């Protein structure tokens, strides 16, 4: 390969198509969810262990940092599911033309923002 070929990697100037953004966010949310698996199991364990543990968990999740983490998890999960449904539809040849793909990507982003904001409102209400 020509070692002197020009390299253009200014991340602020490169424009990604909206479909690429939706796709990379789906991957990022998947990896984030994977990292949350131990948290998920430990929450399930203490929620079922005893009434005292259950109530302690409730107190924990009324604290700002724990709430923020819970929101992050729910945001990643909501996005991953919404974008995942688009993925499954496109696997079935629904909405997989270039134009429909772009619209699908916009719908996924808009819907995710709405759902994530609503969850936030629900958590801090």
């Amino acid at each position, binding site marked *: 390969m020509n070692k002197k070929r020009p390299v253009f990697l200014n991340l602020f100037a490169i424009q990604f198509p909206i479909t690429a953004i939706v796709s990379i966010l789906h991957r990022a949310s*998947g990896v984030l*969810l994977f990292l949350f*698996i131990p948290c998920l199991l430990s929450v399930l364990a203490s*929620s079922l262990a005893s009434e005292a543990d259950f109530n302690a968990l409730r107190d924990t999740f009324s604290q700002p940092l724990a709430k923020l983490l819970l929101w992050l998890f729910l945001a990643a999960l909501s996005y991953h599911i919404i974008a995942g449904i688009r993925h*499954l539809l496109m696997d079935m040849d629904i909405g997989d033309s270039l134009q429909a793909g772009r619209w699908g990507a916009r719908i996924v982003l808009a819907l995710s923002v709405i759902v994530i904001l609503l969850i936030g409102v629900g958590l801090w209400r």
Partner: protein
Amino acid sequence: MAINNLSYGRHGLRDWLLQRVSAVIIAAYFLFLVGFWLTHPGFDYDTWMSLFARPWVSLFSLLFLISLFVHAWIGIWIVATDYLKGAFLRYTVLILVALSFIAFFAWGVQILWSVPA
């Protein structure tokens, strides 16, 4: 070419299908939990325990756990294969993930098991 992977042989199509079936089961399980939470306003420990005491919920939870680890394993395998180009690093990471999944799965089963019927 198929030497450098941890999926036994060339099972792309099988993995692809498993990834989709497991996705649907995981989504159904989370929506089920959210639905339960939304329809039980004064939600407390007893409500929560009685949910997991039902045999079909235990079964559904077990199915969820299996799907979760199948889905996450295939997903992480794909991501690792895309980004970790060095075979040693990739194997190390994937073996650690596999070992932790075995432990986590055992933990999950033990949690479900501990709920009295």
